[in-house]
């Protein structure tokens, strides 16, 4: 293992909490203070944020609760943790002190990928589409880590992307010798997340490496591409990632499937754009 990777691994071990976007925490605090709000409403809002979702799943999967690596959706987590614990998690969530446009872009990208992954999972008749949605939401958690914990390295990567005109992931590999998928994998394992989430996070750019959850991983891979293609948010570079052969074979999407998916996805995007606009207004 390279020196740098060891360093990153060590840092992840001591990572207490990732910061998230102020407006979402603001909205949640309001929702939770309202006696009439339900667990479902709170779950729906937490599922709009990869950092809070990660935080809730980390907690419910910790060894302390006694069912590690089992729970992969926020709504299940709320049932098991209870409203009080989730409330406490939200009121103590840390937020970005200064938020940059890039933070919002990555957040949008994650939301869009979650939506596309959910649609694909439903279309392909997976048993639990909600889990795949969560995997889509969390797939770039490694990039959040780069952003908040290793800003210097991130700057170098961004510079390389611009100067050489290469993919973000290629720049990561040039500088780190591994990518955000690997950082995400380390973090997700550190957090005891179920494998059905870990594999898509780890291998959404290298679907052939997935062992148990190939379909889920292929879906997140393709969802990522769909969101990049419509240009909603940003994953760090302006290009659409290459389609992985293996993923395409696993998905076996027909032309008909795609024709059905695109309008449904467009509709979801309109919804999401309204939501992110609301967030931006709250920030301004």
């Amino acid at each position: 293992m390279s020196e740098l990777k060891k360093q990153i691994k060590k840092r992840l071990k001591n990572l207490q909490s990732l910061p998230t976007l102020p407006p979402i925490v603001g909205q949640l605090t309001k929702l939770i203070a309202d006696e009439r709000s339900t667990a479902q409403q709170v779950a729906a809002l937490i599922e709009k944020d990869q950092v809070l979702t990660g935080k809730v799943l980390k907690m419910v999967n910790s060894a302390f609760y006694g069912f590690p690596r089992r729970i992969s959706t926020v709504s299940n987590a709320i049932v098991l943790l209870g409203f009080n614990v989730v409330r406490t998690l939200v009121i103590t969530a840390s937020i970005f002190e200064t938020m940059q446009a890039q933070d919002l872009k990555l957040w949008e990208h994650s939301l869009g990928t979650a939506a596309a992954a959910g649609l694909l999972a439903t279309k392909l008749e997976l048993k639990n589409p909600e889990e795949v949605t969560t995997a889509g939401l969390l797939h770039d958690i490694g990039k959040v880590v780069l952003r908040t914990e290793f800003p210097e390295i991130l700057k170098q990567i961004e510079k390389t992307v611009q100067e050489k005109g290469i993919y973000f992931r290629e720049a990561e590999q040039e500088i780190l010798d591994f990518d955000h998928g690997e950082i995400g994998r380390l973090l997700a394992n550190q957090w005891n997340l179920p494998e059905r989430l870990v594999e898509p996070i780890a291998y959404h750019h290298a679907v052939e490496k997935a062992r148990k959850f190939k379909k889920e991983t292929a879906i997140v891979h393709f969802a990522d591409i769909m969101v990049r293609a419509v240009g909603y948010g940003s994953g760090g570079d302006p290009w659409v990632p290459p389609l992985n052969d293996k993923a395409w074979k696993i998905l076996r999407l027909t032309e008909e499937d795609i024709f059905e998916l695109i309008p449904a996805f467009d509709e979801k995007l309109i919804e999401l754009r309204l939501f992110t606009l609301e967030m931006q207004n709250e920030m301004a």
Partner: protein
Amino acid sequence: MKWRNKLFILARSEWVKELTSFLKDEFFIEFSDIPEKAVEKVLNNPPELLLIEEALSPEMAKNLVLAFKKDLHLTFLPILLIVSQQELNKDWEKLPVDDFVLEKANPEEIKSRLKLALVRVKCSADANPLTGLPGNTSILRTIQEKIDRKEKVAVAYVDIDQFKPFNDRYGFARGDEILRALARILSNVLGLKCREEGFVGHIGGDDFVFICPEDLVEEVCQEIIEEYERILPNFIDPEDLERGYFIARTRQGKIEKIPFPSLSIAVVPLRGGRFKHYGEVSAVASELKKIVKAKKGSNYLIDRRKN
């Protein structure tokens, strides 16, 4: 070095930092002045004692204490609050800590209070070691109390059908996981629907009891079953889930289809002076259990008979 109890301190003032170095012979100490760090630490890897400085942020301190005290797994974590002389007069009902220490108190005194809090906790626990729920002594005492006070409550007996085949298929460790998850579902649903009026206990194995106001019991049963069914697939392997049942071999070597574990709930309303002794309640419950267990899937049955 001798074995030390784990103490978490959430505080900021200089004198507490000094106190920390005094206490470190007696306790294994983790210190933080950031509430969010404390929350993560305490929830993920709870200490045996928690010391919070109120002056850090009174509102936050209150919220933390309430949240920790309400959490099933943490009910036996003693929390001590550091308060100033001026803040001493307060409504402790609303801030249910186990003890307090005064700001800048004698370190020896603080040490003794911390040690005493640990001792007290050991005396009061008949909790089930697996789930942290109150055990038989507390259950029987609570039922008898409700009978004596003629409260309008219902006592419900919960157990898992097909729990043994589940254990045979996946092993006891996974069985324990389900029991812990069920314990949390029960206490979360009761907490949400009945607040302070609900009670949950763990008799042992897959047998649980809850008590709630009679007019809420139907709603509570439905919610428990709904949430249990929602959580269950997380504990079943993908290939079994795909098939929809377990396959087992009987002693005669025959192949059998066995359904996934489901819940049975038998509910006995106490209705004023119907019972004199808790033994009568469980006798009625076992009759009901036979009926409810004969049905497929998760079910509840409320005893509607007048006498």
